[in-house]
C-alpha cells in the first residue's frame, strides 16, 4: 500500500470547460494553492476512480499548444516536459470542445507525441446539438487510438466512464499508441539526438520540446542551457520556424479526421453571441454598458451588504455584552470581550461585501464578458503602459489587490504585467471601505443632492481618485521602465454562455474562505497584539499615570465616572501602544495625526481594515460605552485643547492617506512572490506611501 498516489493532469484549451470537469471530479475535496514560485493558482484534489483506487487530479492552466505566450500557459507546459516537476503527470484527461474540434486536436496530438496515457473527454455536446453538429465519438476514438468519452460539464454525465477508462489505462501501463500527426524533420531528429546526449528524454519529441523551451526554462541548469544553446547554434535550428512548421503539419494531417467525425451544417442565422456583442461591444454603447455595470457592481456592494453587515455588527456586540455579564471581571474575560470577539467580528463583517463583489466578478468572467472588456479597453490601457488584460486586474482590485495581482499572470508582456502589479493596489479595495465609511461622516454631513447622497458622492470621488492615481502611476512607469519583448493581445472572445452555478459556487467558496482564514488570521493576531500593547505598559509608568490622574481628578473635582475615564486615558497614554504612538508622532504631525492615529497606522499595516478595529479598541478600553458606534466615539474625542481630534481636515488627510498608502502586508508579500525579488515590493511601498504622505500633508496644511 506504500504505493505513491498517481497524478492525473487535467488539460485543455482555455474555455473548454476544464473547471466544470474538475469540480465534478473532486467536489469539495479540492485544494487551492500556488504553483511553486509563482502565485498562479494551483488546484488539485483527490478522487476515487473506484472504491480501491484514489488518484490526485491536478488542474493545469489552459493552453492552446505546447508553445506558451503567457506565464500560466508556461506553467502547464513546464509540468509536462520537466520530468522532475512535482506535477509531472502519470496520465492526462484531455478535455475537448467538439464545437471547436479542429483547434482542440492540436494540443491533444502534441500530448500524444509526448507519449502520455490519455483519456479524452468530449465536452459541449449540448451546444453541438443546437448547432446541428453530428459528432461520431467512436470514429474519433478509432482514428486517434485513444478512449474518447462524451461528457456534459453541466450535468456531470460521462464522469463515471472517464474514471473507469482512467483506471483501465493506469493498469494497462502498456506501450502507447504510435499514432502521430507530426513527422519529425531530419534537422529536428539531429537536434533531438544531440539533446539526449546531455539530458535523458522520453523520446525525440520530448527532447525537441526541451530545446524549444530551454531559453525561458526555469528548471534546466545553467550548464544545460548553455549546452542547448550550442546545439541550436550548431544545427542552425530556428525555434519559431520549427514551431510554425509543426503546427501546419499537424493541422494538415488531422484536418481530414475532423471532416470525417463531424457533420456540420452551420446555421446561417446570427448566433446569440453575435446578437449580444452587437450591443455589448458596440463602439459607443459598449463603454457605456461597461461603466453602467461597474456602477451597478459598486452600488450592489454598498446597498446589498448593509443589512447583513448591520446584523453581524449587532450580533457581535450582543455577544460581547452577554459574555461580559456572565464571566467574572478578570484578565481572561477582558481578553475575550475586548480583543478576541471584536477581532473576529471585524473579519466576519467583511464577508457580505467580499461575497457580493466576487460573485459579480466571477459571473462576468463565467459568462464571457470579461474578455469583451479587455477587447474594448486594450487600446486605452496600452497608452498607459498596460495591457487590455490589465482591466481584469484593475476591476478585481476593487475587491482585493491580492487576487487581482494574481490575475495578471495572463499578461504575456513582462513590462505590462509588472506595471499592472505595481499600480493595482491604488484601486480602492474592500478593506478601505470601512475606513472610508467611518471617516466620511467627518468630511461631509449626509444630505441629498438630487437623487444622490452627499456621502455617496464622496465615496465615488474617492474611487475615482484611486483609478486616476493608478493610471497616472502606470503612465510614469511606462516612461521609466524598459521593454524587453513585444506585447500581444490576440485574445479569444468565447461564445457567451450561462454561468455554471457549481463553478461560481466553488470559486466564491474558495475566495471568501481564503479571505476569512488567510487575511483573517493576520487581522485577529494583530488585534490580540494591539490589545496587549494598549492594556499593558512599563509597570512603574502605569502606576505613576494612575496616581497623577487620580490627583488631577480630585483637584478638578470630577465625579467618579469622569475620574475613571480620565484614569483610563492616562493609562493608555502610558501603555506600550501609547509609547509607540508618541515615538512616531513627530513624523505624522504635519499630516494632522496624533499619536493615537499613529498607533492605528502602525497596526493597520497588517491590513487596512484593522484601522477601524484599532481605533475602536483605543477608544473603548476602560469605557462602559461598548455599544456606542465607532463614529460617535470618535466625535467625542477631544485633544488637550478641547478641540475635536477628528476635525474635517484631519479626517480628509487620513482618508487620502489610506487611499494612496501601501498599507497592506499581504499585498507586498504577494508582489514579492510574483516578481521573485524584494526590489519591486520595496519600490511599490516607497512610491505609494510617499505619495500618500505628500498628498495628506499638502491637504492638511492648506485646510487646517
Amino acid at each position, binding site marked *: 500500500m506504500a504505493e505513491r498516489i498517481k497524478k492525473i493532469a487535467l488539460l485543455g484549451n482555455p474555455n473548454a470547460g476544464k473547471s466544470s470537469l474538475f469540480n465534478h471530479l473532486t467536489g469539495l475535496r479540492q485544494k487551492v494553492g500556488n504553483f511553486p514560485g509563482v502565485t498562479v493558482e494551483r488546484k488539485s484534489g483527490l478522487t476515487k476512480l473506484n472504491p480501491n483506487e484514489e488518484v490526485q487530479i491536478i488542474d493545469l492552466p489552459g493552453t*492552446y*499548444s505546447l*508553445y506558451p*505566450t503567457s506565464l500560466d500557459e508556461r506553467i502547464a507546459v513546464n509540468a509536462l516536459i520537466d520530468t522532475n516537476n512535482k506535477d509531472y503527470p502519470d496520465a492526462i484527461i484531455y478535455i475537448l470542445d467538439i*464545437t*471547436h474540434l*479542429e*483547434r482542440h486536436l*492540436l*494540443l491533444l496530438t502534441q500530448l500524444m507525441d509526448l507519449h502520455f496515457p490519455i483519456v479524452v473527454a468530449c465536452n459541449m455536446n449540448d451546444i453541438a446539438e443546437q448547432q446541428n453538429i453530428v459528432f461520431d465519438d467512436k470514429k474519433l476514438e478509432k482514428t486517434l487510438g485513444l478512449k474518447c468519452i462524451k461528457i456534459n460539464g453541466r450535468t456531470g454525465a460521462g464522469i463515471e466512464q472517464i474514471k473507469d477508462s482512467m483506471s483501465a489505462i493506469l493498469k494497462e501501463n502498456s506501450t502507447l499508441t504510435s499514432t502521430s500527426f507530426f513527422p519529425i524533420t531530419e534537422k529536428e531528429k539531429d537536434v533531438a539526438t544531440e539533446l539526449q546526449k546531455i539530458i535523458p528524454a522520453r523520446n525525440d519529441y520530448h527532447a525537441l520540446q526541451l530545446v524549444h523551451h530551454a531559453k525561458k526554462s526555469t528548471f534546466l541548469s545553467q550548464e544545460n542551457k548553455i549546452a542547448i544553446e550550442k546545439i541550436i547554434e550548431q544545427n542552425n535550428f530556428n525555434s*519559431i*520556424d520549427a*514551431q*510554425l512548421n509543426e*503546427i*501546419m503539419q499537424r*493541422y494538415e494531417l488531422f484536418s481530414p479526421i475532423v471532416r470525417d467525425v463531424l457533420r456540420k451544417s*452551420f446555421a446561417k442565422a446570427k448566433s446569440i*453571441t*453575435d446578437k449580444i*456583442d452587437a450591443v455589448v*461591444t*458596440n*463602439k*459607443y454603447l*459598449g*463603454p457605456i454598458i461597461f461603466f453602467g455595470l461597474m456602477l451597478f457592481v459598486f452600488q450592489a456592494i454598498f446597498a446589498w451588504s448593509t443589512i447583513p453587515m448591520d446584523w453581524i455588527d449587532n450580533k457581535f456586540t450582543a455577544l460581547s455584552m452577554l459574555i461580559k455579564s456572565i464571566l467574572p471581571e478578570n484578565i481572561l474575560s477582558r481578553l475575550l470581550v475586548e480583543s478576541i470577539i471584536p477581532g473576529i467580528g471585524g473579519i466576519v463583517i467583511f464577508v457580505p461585501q467580499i461575497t457580493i463583489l466576487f460573485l459579480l466578478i466571477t459571473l462576468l468572467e463565467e459568462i464571457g464578458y470579461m*474578455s469583451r472588456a*479587455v*477587447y*474594448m*479597453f*486594450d*487600446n*486605452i490601457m496600452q497608452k498607459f503602459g498596460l495591457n*487590455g488584460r490589465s482591466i481584469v486586474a484593475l476591476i478585481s482590485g476593487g475587491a482585493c489587490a491580492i487576487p487581482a495581482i494574481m490575475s495578471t499572470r495572463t499578461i504575456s508582456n513582462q513590462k505590462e504585467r509588472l506595471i499592472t502589479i505595481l499600480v493595482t493596489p491604488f484601486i480602492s479595495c474592500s478593506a478601505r471601505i470601512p475606513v472610508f465609511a467611518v471617516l466620511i461622516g467627518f468630511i461631509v454631513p449626509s444630505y441629498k443632492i438630487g437623487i444622490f447622497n452627499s456621502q455617496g458622492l464622496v465615496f465615488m470621488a474617492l474611487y475615482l481618485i484611486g483609478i486616476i492615481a493608478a493610471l497616472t502611476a502606470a503612465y510614469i512607469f511606462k516612461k521609466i521602465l524598459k521593454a524587453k519583448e*513585444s506585447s*500581444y*493581445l*490576440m*485574445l*479569444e*472572445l*468565447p*461564445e457567451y454562455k450561462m454561468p455554471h452555478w457549481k463553478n461560481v459556487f466553488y470559486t466564491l467558496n474558495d475566495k471568501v474562505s481564503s479571505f476569512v482564514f488567510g487575511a483573517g488570521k493576520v487581522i485577529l493576531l494583530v488585534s490580540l497584539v494591539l490589545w496587549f500593547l494598549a492594556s499593558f505598559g512599563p509597570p512603574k509608568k502605569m502606576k505613576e499615570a494612575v496616581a497623577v490622574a487620580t490627583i488631577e481628578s480630585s483637584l478638578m473635582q470630577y465625579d467618579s465616572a469622569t475620574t475613571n475615564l480620565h484614569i483610563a486615558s492616562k493609562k493608555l497614554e502610558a501603555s506600550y501602544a501609547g509609547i509607540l504612538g508618541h515615538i512616531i508622532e513627530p513624523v505624522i504631525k504635519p499630516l494632522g495625526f496624533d499619536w493615537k492615529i499613529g498607533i492605528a497606522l502602525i497596526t493597520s499595516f497588517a491590513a487596512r481594515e484593522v484601522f477601524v478595529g484599532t481605533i475602536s479598541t483605543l477608544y473603548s478600553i476602560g469605557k462602559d460605552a461598548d455599544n456606542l458606534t465607532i463614529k460617535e466615539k470618535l466625535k467625542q474625542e477631544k485633544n488637550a485643547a478641547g478641540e475635536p481630534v477628528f476635525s474635517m481636515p484631519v479626517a480628509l488627510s487620513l482618508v487620502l492617506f489610506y487611499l494612496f498608502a501601501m498599507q497592506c502586508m499581504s499585498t507586498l508579500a504577494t508582489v514579492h512572490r510574483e516578481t521573485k525579488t524584494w526590489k519591486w515590493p520595496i519600490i511599490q511601498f516607497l512610491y505609494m506611501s510617499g505619495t500618500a504622505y505628500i498628498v495628506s500633508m499638502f491637504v492638511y496644511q492648506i485646510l487646517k
Partner: protein
Amino acid sequence: MKNITTLHLGESAIITEYSDNAVACKLMAMGLLPGASISVVRKAPFGGAYYVRTENHYVALRRNEAKHVLITNG
C-alpha cells in the same frame, strides 16, 4: 499582399498566410487557419482592437497583429 486591416466592417476574405511567424503560431493554435474565411466584425472604440471572426472563432487583435494576417478576396 492585402491584410485584414484593409477590410471594411462586415466584408469577408480568405486567409492566405501570415507575415510574422510568432503571430502565425499563436493565431493558428487559436484556430485561425489559412484557407478560412475571415471578416472584421467591428473595431473597438478610440481606434482600438479589431474584433474578427472566422467560421466559428471570435478573436480580438491589435492593429499590429491584424496587419500580419494576409488575405485574398474570396
